Each structure stands twice: as structure tokens, then as C-alpha cells.
């Protein structure tokens, strides 16, 4: 019997090639998409599961609470906090700091930047990465030792063994390689690790910050003792910073407070504290996309199966007349649908194997090849194909097996009308989803563009950044560098600064106005060069900007460091800072003063007000900013170019840097690209959504195509009659197209409603957002309609142009 089923199933596939191809291709595309997503999900959900003690590893985070701003969770901590923590909390078995420093190495006689990860010697007791060379337990027990990852070792030492070799620092110091570990996999929060050294190594970053509670630049991980009551620990930890940190009570006065809390290692990726799109959002979004695509694909499958079912009616009737019980007929049809979905699964697996590298590039995904093991990919494909075959095949099987043999064998009509209503509903559903997805994707992209290109408060075009002025070897070279850069004909202006818009770091300072009791504020504070506002083109609203000729504008270097010294300084405020300090207009603020509180206040006098600047991504509202003139804090120079031949100019600028500061490797960026990077995750999300939305629409259209061909066939008699009565080709095409336009039109209305509601909710999360664009809705709806027309028109025209005698078969 199974042989008979198989023969019939295969002959049916072969005979209705178009129908089979549509079904298999649609299913394969859907399956491939869902398999891709399953792979991504497996990757996302397996993060940081590499460590033996992983369940007991936590990261210490803090939440900064600054009045006038939303609380901000952060992962960075200060160096001294770790030791204080280890002493105060016996339930912490080990406390490990992980920081990063960009150091200069001499490699093959050339200075190169190398990111070195600084860790406490106990690091490997938490993170037990497998070692290829050396002994994990002692590798970092002493200073001036480094552990390399495998790829770094082969980059630095080619193919020879790295153990015992040395790397030379920019200042001539030698670090000895004491171990080679595996590269962290792509599903690790530590992906990209290159070189580790102990915090006992005297690197400038460590020396500077050893006693500095104000500089938060490293992560603190801890191994909690087994059996610890973590909630109770969290409770005690919360205000620990206030207790141990010097000056914390003064800060509290200026409206600044930080709370500590522990986050489990396994949660780091799904709930990142500092990324704008969390892994969880990604996981949920991807799961939804996979479900949608599979649903759209299986709708096709159900629609085509039930539609074709009428053609199989005679076979069913005959089988039943010959005594086949219904459940055997059900099994036969289920078997056929399984055959179809398994074929599709095969196609999908092959397709995924071939195309995944391309997808990876397009989506900007980093996923180790290990995740693409054929066994797992094929397994997931098989599983989904099975599920799809059973779920999608169930309804058609039950429907087809329900035919009453007597009616059919007598030559009576088959009641396909009931199925027709279901089909119409499913088509509406498919197109609703596809159109809504398209609108959603377009809006996400529009919002991303808008956020990236909106008025940032400065002109981001044609600005080059050269970084690295904080390096030791660059000290004292700023003035020469600026003079040389300014002399270049392609340069309009040059200004130094501590950080660029879009950089993650931020400097905040507490302020007060003594004449307004209780007014304590913490505000972003930028220590800038004299030309800063001109070079970045930040509009001045009132007063003036800093002028080098007036010695009084410069903030003396001692001011921020030595509280014993009484100081006066001039400041510039951003528009929002004026408001926060309690003045009504920029004009009113001019000449007024406020203070940095301390044993002796630093008195600040407002000389100018500038427009607010968007230093971070558009998710954050513009923050109030205080500007001080302190070019000696610079780490980079902004260079505004005249435009024109930019590549040649940039090349000259790089040459100047190499001549003036040969010891420091060049790091050059464009400001606009730096800003774009802020939105890279949105662009990635938009691309993924766009890709899958496109697939959903494609699959839906495949289904419509199949259904149209079927309907055109089924309505042959009616069309024949109409033609005999004088209907022209156009009239027939119009008739068929209108029939298929109706569900799509309904879907458009539904999709508009859904997309409108969901998107306005999503957009509400942005400080600066695009309005919902009616044109976008029209284009998505119109596009779907046109695609549907094109899909159906071919069939309609073919049927309409056929000789009526072919259409009108005589019974």
C-alpha cells in the first residue's frame, strides 16, 4: 500500500510540475529563512556558556542616578573598588578586574597599536579558557607576562611557538609570552580578545588609575561562593560605593549617586547595560520573524493543497468505494505532504550551506563556522520540515478524506466553496503580515536615517579626527601639530578635544549655585580647545566663545586637581544647561556665575551660550553641557577640511602627524562615519528585518501565483461562457485580477492598522523621531497590489486569450 501511495505521490508531483515547484520553492525559502533564524537564535542563546564555574560568575554593574536625567546603568567601574569589595564581602570568593588599554607595540620595527586586556592574576580561575601552550594556573602570576590568543600568536610569531618569546612595548620594555589560549568563540562576550597581561604589570593606564575612584574604565567580575544568598548580597552591595568612595557625600549633594548591583554572566549578552538594542530584543524579534515566515510558507502549502484537492476527489472516492477507511486516506495525504516538506527541507539545507557566508556578510553577523555544522543545520531543517508537513498537511488531509464517494463518482460537484473561504482568509493573513512587515522595515530604516542625519547641533561633514594625543610620546607636541595642520591649504581649522561626539566615554562634574539653595546639578562637561566651536560649527546663541588672546579664558591645569586652590574661570553653557541652572534665557545667563563645590569653590562665570549638541545616539535626549577651556586635556584633534580633494588632503595630514609624532601610530577617522557607527546596530536590525520581510512577501506571492493558476483553471467554464457571450480579453483579465485584488486590498487595510499602532509605539521610544509617513503606507500597499497583479495577470491573460472552445469543454 505504501508503494502505491508513493507511486501516486511522485506521479502527482511530476504531473503538476508548476504546482510542485511553487510548493517546494515556497516551503524551501520559508524553511531556509527559519533555519537561518534558528541558527542565529542558537548562537544568541548560547552566549558565555564556556566556563566551568559560569553559574557562579557575576559582573558588578552600577547605575548612575543624576538629577535631571534618566538613571543610567553602566558596566564600568573604578580600579580601587575591586580591592575594597574583596575585603568587605567574604561571600565573594574571587574578585577580578578586566580592563582594556590601547598600547603601542614595536612589531617588525614599526609602532602599532595593540589592545591589551588587563586582568587580575586570578582571572583564569573564573574564565578557564583552554591553553594551547603554557600553564594556565601560573601564566599571569607575575608582572610583565602576556598570554596571547591563538590568532594573535600566529599574527605576531607566524607559525613558530610563541611561548617564551617577547613583545616589545613602545617604550622598549619587554613582555614575555607565558601562554597561548584559544580564541574566544563568537558566542562570547569576550570575543575579539587578543592579549592579556596582569594588573601587576606597570602600564600607564594602571599606574594612573590605581587610586582613582573617579575614573570608571574597567569591568569587575566576581566568583560568588556556593550557597550564597545573592538577593541579600545585592541588598548590601547597593550603597557600598557611597560608603567607600572618597567624596561620595559631596557628590550626593550635587545630585549624583551610584548604586551597585550584580548581573549573572549568562545574562550579559541578552540584557546588556550599555547597548541600544539588547540581545533579548534581537532574540524576540528573530523568533517572531521565523514564526511569521514559517506561517506564511505553510499557509501557501495549505492553500495549494486544499485547492488542488478537488482534482484528487475522484481518487479519494474510488479508494473509499474500494473500502479504504478514512484514517488511511488521511495518512496517505499526510504522507504526501511530508514528502513535499522533506524535499523542501533538503533544498533549504543545501541552499543554506551555500548561501550562509553571503548572508553573514550582508547582515554583518559574526558567527563561528562551528555553528554551521551540517548535522545541526540539517537536523533543524528536518525537524522543521516534519513539523510543517504534519501541521500544514493535517487540514488538507482531513478535508480531502472527507469527500463522499457517492456524490463524486456520480459525477456531482465537489463542494470546494467552503475551502475557498478559508483560502481567502489565509491569503488575507499572508498579505497582511507581509505588508505590515514591509512598512515596519521601511519605518525602521527611515528612523535610523533620520536619527543619524538629524541636526546634531554641529556639522559632521568634512571633519577628520586624529587620535592619540594622550599617549606619553605625544605630550607637548599639540601646538606644533596644530600649527602644521593649520598651515595646510586643504584645512579650514583645527581644534583639540578630549573626545569626539559619538565616543562612549563621558565626563560629568557636579555644580551648584550658592544663591539658589538646594540647586545641585551634575552635567556633562567638555574640556575643549579655543577653536572647538568654530571647527565643529556649533552655533553660538549668546555672548562669545573662548578666545586664546584673553588669558583669563583658560582654565588653569590645577583647577580640577587641587581643591585647596581658589579659582575663577570662564565657561560656556549649552542651551539646556542654562535652563537647568535656572536662568530663563541665554541672554540672562551671560555674566552670571555658578560653582564647582568643594572645600573652596571654583567660581565659574558664563561668557557664552551655544546650541545643544547631540553627543550620544538619538535614543538619548540632548544633555546639558558645560564647556571649559582646557586644550591640554586633549586626546584628539578635529580638523575641518575645505572639501575638494579630500583623499589627498587627508594623506598630507597623516604625513604631518607621522613627522611631528613619529612614535605614536596614526589613528584617523571621519566624524560622520564615527556618528554612523552609533546607529550600526539599527542598520543591522533593519537589514535583517528587510531581508526577511522581502522573503515573506516573496513567499506570499508564490502562493498567490499558485492559487491564481488554480483558480484560472477552475473557472475555465465560467470564463468560457463569458467569452462565448462576447467578453473580451481585457474584461476577463480585469475580472480575475479584481478577484485577487479584493483579499489584497483587505490585507492592506489590516496591515495599515497594525503597522500604524505598533510603529507609533516603537517610535515613541526615541527622543527624535520621524513621523509615520503616509507615503510609506501607500507605497507598501500599492506595491503589494501591483506585485499581486503582476503575479495573477500572466495567468489571467493566458486563460483569457485561449480559444473559447478550449475554455468551454463540452461535457
Amino acid at each position, binding site marked *: 500500500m505504501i508503494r502505491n501511495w508513493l507511486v501516486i505521490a511522485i506521479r502527482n508531483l511530476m504531473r503538476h510540475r508548476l504546482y510542485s515547484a511553487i510548493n517546494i520553492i515556497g516551503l524551501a525559502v520559508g524553511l531556509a529563512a527559519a533555519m537561518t533564524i534558528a541558527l542565529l537564535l542558537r548562537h544568541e542563546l548560547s552566549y558565555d556558556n564556556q566556563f566551568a564555574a559560569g553559574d557562579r560568575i557575576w559582573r558588578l554593574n552600577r547605575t548612575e542616578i543624576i538629577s535631571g536625567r534618566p538613571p543610567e546603568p553602566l558596566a564600568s567601574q573604578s580600579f580601587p573598588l575591586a580591592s575594597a569589595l574583596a575585603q568587605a564581602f567574604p561571600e565573594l570568593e574571587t574578585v577580578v578586574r578586566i580592563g582594556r588599554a590601547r598600547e603601542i607595540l614595536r612589531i617588525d620595527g614599526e609602532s602599532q597599536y595593540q589592545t591589551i586586556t588587563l586582568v587580575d592574576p586570578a582571572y583564569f580561575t573564573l574564565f578557564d579558557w583552554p591553553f594551547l601552550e603554557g600553564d594556565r594556573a601560573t601564566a599571569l602570576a607575575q608582572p610583565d607576562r602576556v598570554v596571547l590568543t591563538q590568532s594573535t600568536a600566529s599574527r605576531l610569531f607566524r607559525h613558530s611557538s610563541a611561548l617564551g618569546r617577547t613583545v616589545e612595548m613602545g617604550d622598549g620594555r619587554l613582555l614575555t609570552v607565558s601562554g597561548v589560549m584559544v580564541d574566544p568563540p563568537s558566542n562570547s562576550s569576550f570575543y575579539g580578545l587578543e592579549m592579556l597581561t596582569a594588573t601587576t604589570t606597570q602600564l600607564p593606564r594602571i599606574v594612573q588609575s590605581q587610586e582613582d575612584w573617579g575614573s570608571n574604565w574597567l569591568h569587575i567580575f566576581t566568583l560568588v561562593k556556593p550557597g550564597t544568598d545573592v538577593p541579600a548580597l545585592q541588598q548590601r552591595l547597593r550603597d557600598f560605593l557611597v560608603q567607600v568612595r572618597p567624596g561620595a557625600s559631596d557628590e550626593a549633594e550635587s545630585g549624583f549617586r551610584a548604586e551597585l548591583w550584580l548581573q549573572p554572566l549568562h545574562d550579559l549578552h541578552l540584557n546588556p547595560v550599555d547597548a541600544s538594542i539588547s540581545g533579548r530584543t534581537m532574540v524576540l524579534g528573530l523568533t517572531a520573524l521565523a514564526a511569521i515566515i514559517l506561517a506564511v510558507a505553510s499557509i501557501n502549502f495549505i492553500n495549494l493543497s486544499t485547492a488542488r484537492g478537488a482534482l484528487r476527489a475522484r481518487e479519494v472516492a474510488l479508494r473509499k468505494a474500494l473500502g479504504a477507511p478514512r484514517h488511511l486516506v488521511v495518512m496517505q495525504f499526510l504522507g504526501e505532504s511530508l514528502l513535499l516538506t522533506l524535499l523542501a527541507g533538503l533544498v533549504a539545507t543545501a541552499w543554506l550551506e551555500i548561501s550562509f557566508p553571503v548572508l553573514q556578510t550582508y547582515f554583518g553577523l559574526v558567527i563561528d563556522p562551528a555553528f554551521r555544522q551540517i548535522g545541526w543545520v540539517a537536523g533543524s531543517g528536518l525537524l522543521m520540515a516534519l513539523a510543517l508537513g504534519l501541521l500544514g498537511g493535517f487540514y488538507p488531509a482531513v478535508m480531502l478524506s472527507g469527500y463522499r464517494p457517492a456524490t463524486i463518482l456520480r459525477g456531482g*460537484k465537489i463542494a470546494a466553496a467552503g475551502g475557498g473561504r478559508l483560502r481567502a482568509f489565509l491569503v488575507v493573513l499572508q498579505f497582511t503580515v507581509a505588508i505590515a512587515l514591509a512598512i515596519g522595515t521601511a519605518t525602521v530604516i527611515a528612523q535610523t536615517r533620520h536619527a543619524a542625519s538629524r541636526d546634531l547641533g554641529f556639522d559632521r561633514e568634512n571633519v577628520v579626527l586624529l587620535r592619540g594625543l594622550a599617549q606619553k610620546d605625544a605630550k607637548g607636541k599639540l601646538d606644533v601639530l596644530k600649527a602644521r595642520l593649520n598651515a595646510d591649504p586643504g584645512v579650514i581649522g583645527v581644534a583639540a578635544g578630549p573626545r569626539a561626539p559619538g565616543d562612549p566615554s563621558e565626563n560629568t562634574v557636579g555644580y551648584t549655585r550658592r544663591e539658589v539653595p538646594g540647586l545641585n546639578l551634575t552635567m556633562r562637561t567638555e574640556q575643549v580647545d579655543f577653536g572647538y566651536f568654530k571647527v565643529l560649527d556649533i552655533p553660538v546663541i549668546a555672548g562669545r566663545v573662548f578666545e586664546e588672546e584673553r588669558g583669563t579664558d583658560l582654565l588653569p591645569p590645577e583647577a580640577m586637581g587641587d581643591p585647596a586652590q581658589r579659582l575663577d574661570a570662564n565657561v560656556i553653557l549649552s542651551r539646556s544647561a542654562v535652563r537647568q541652572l535656572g536662568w530663563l534665557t541665554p541672554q540672562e545667563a551671560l555674566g552670571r556665575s555658578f560653582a564647582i563645590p568643594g572645600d573652596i569653590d571654583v567660581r565659574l562665570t558664563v561668557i557664552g551660550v551655544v546650541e545643544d549638541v547631540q553627543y550620544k545616539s538619538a535614543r538619548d535626549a540632548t544633555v546639558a553641557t558645560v564647556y571649559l577651556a582646557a586644550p591640554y586635556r586633549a586626546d584628539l584633534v578635529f580638523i575641518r577640511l575645505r572639501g575638494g580633494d579630500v583623499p589627498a588632503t587627508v594623506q598630507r595630514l597623516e604625513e604631518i602627524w607621522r613627522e611631528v609624532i613619529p612614535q605614536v601610530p596614526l589613528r584617523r577617522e571621519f566624524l560622520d562615519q564615527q556618528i554612523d557607527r552609533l546607529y550600526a546596530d539599527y542598520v543591522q536590525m533593519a537589514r535583517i528585518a528587510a531581508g526577511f520581510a522581502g522573503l515573506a512577501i516573496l513567499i506570499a506571492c508564490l502562493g498567490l501565483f499558485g492559487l491564481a493558476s488554480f483558480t484560472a483553471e477552475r473557472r475555465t*467554464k*465560467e470564463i*468560457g*461562457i*463569458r*467569452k*462565448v*457571450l*462576447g*467578453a*473580451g*480579453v481585457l*474584461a476577463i483579465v480585469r475580472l480575475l485580477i479584481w478577484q485577487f485584488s479584493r483579499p489584497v486590498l483587505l490585507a492592506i487595510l489590516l496591515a495599515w492598522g497594525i503597522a500604524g499602532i505598533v510603529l507609533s509605539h516603537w517610535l515613541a521610544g526615541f527622543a527624535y523621531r520621524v513621523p509615520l509617513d503616509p507615503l510609506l503606507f501607500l507605497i507598501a500597499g500599492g506595491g503589494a497590489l501591483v506585485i499581486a497583479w503582476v503575479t495573477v495577470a500572466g495567468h489571467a491573460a493566458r486563460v483569457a*486569450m485561449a*480559444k*473559447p*472552445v478550449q475554455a*468551454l469543454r*463540452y*461535457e
Partner: protein
Amino acid sequence: MLKLVDLVKTYRTEEVETTALNSVNIHVRPGEFVAIMGPSGCGKSSLLNIVGMLDNPTGGQYLFNGEEVSKYGERKLADIRKKNIGFIFQSFNLIDELTVFENVELALLYHDIPARERKARVREALEKVNIAHREGHLPQQLSGGQQQRVAIARAVVAKPKMLLADEPTGNLDSANGDEVMRMLTDLNAEGTTIVMVTHSMPHAQYATRIINLFDGQVVAENMRAA
């Protein structure tokens, strides 16, 4: 009205070529009522399809009102067809989803006729075949005879010069069959040319001329005294 000269129709499948009509010559004058008879597979339906311009002949000439139409494309044929020819089928060929009224109206939809006149003409046609009281019914709610009367109403509503009937009584009992034949005779008396294919000798007797077809050829023509 129509003149077929050496008309040939062959059907070709992958392997075999079948000749359905082999050098057929027929001349039908306006106002005639012609019955075509012959056994199954003799080419009756092929002939009617070509006469009705639902299909093109493989060879020979087809003059309709003096116009050579055998090489015309579908668009042009459709135009001539809707202005001149009405069809009646053995299996009625009513559209299941449309009511009696809508089925008849369908024949006028493809002519440029204002809605009001269209409705009036549909009513008139329905009354002529005594089915007006069922105009809101769907075809499957009617008996076979009633359905064929609707089909006749649909065939004549556009006032064609020629009516083609393909075994119009084949699916009907004798009482209903006679009724349909009386209607055709009345229509012929009003001036409509009729070409009818039939198996039934008694019904063929209603015609003014009988043409016998065998193996794709005309084997006999009998004029009846009108």
C-alpha cells in the same frame, strides 16, 4: 448568412492527428433553421464550434455574411460573435454563482448598453421564456427544463441574427424538450437563423433542412417543405 467552403479541421496531439472535419461545404441562408445530425464523433461539435467562432478551422474558407473570418484572431472573432451569434448548450452552462437574472444579463454586459435598458431587455427575455418569476434564483435551484429556458433567454437577449444550439434537448425529458423546440421554432419564425446539432430525429423535424454528417463529411441534405 454563412458559407463553409472545403472546411477542414484536424486535431493534433503529440502522436496522432485526427481529422474532425474533412472538406465540408455548407451554405446557410438567412432565416433558415438547419439541423445537423450524425453519430458520436462525426464532427458535429467541431463544426458548431467553428461556425460559432469559438475555434478556427485548419483549412478551407468560412464566410460569415460575406466576410472571410477563418483567419481572424480571437479579438476580432469575439467582436463578430457577440454582435451576431447566440449559443444554447446541452449542459446549459449557466454560471452557478450568479442568479437567473444575472446570468441573462451577462450576455448584455459586454455590449455597450445602458443599465436601465439592459434590465428591461433581461426582463423581456425572461418573460418570453416564462421564467421571469424565478429571476432571483440560482441555477441549481431550477429544474433542467427551467435552466435551459434561462439559457435560451440568455442566448436571445442580445438579439443575435443567428442562434447556435448544441443538443439543446439532450439533457431534458420529452415534455421539456418539446417546449424548448417550440420556442426555437417561434424564434425562427421571428427571423432568427438557427443552426442546431441534435441526436433526436423528432426534434430535427422542427428544422427546415437536415444535414447529415458522418466521419467529418456531409453525407446527405434533406430539404423539408416549409
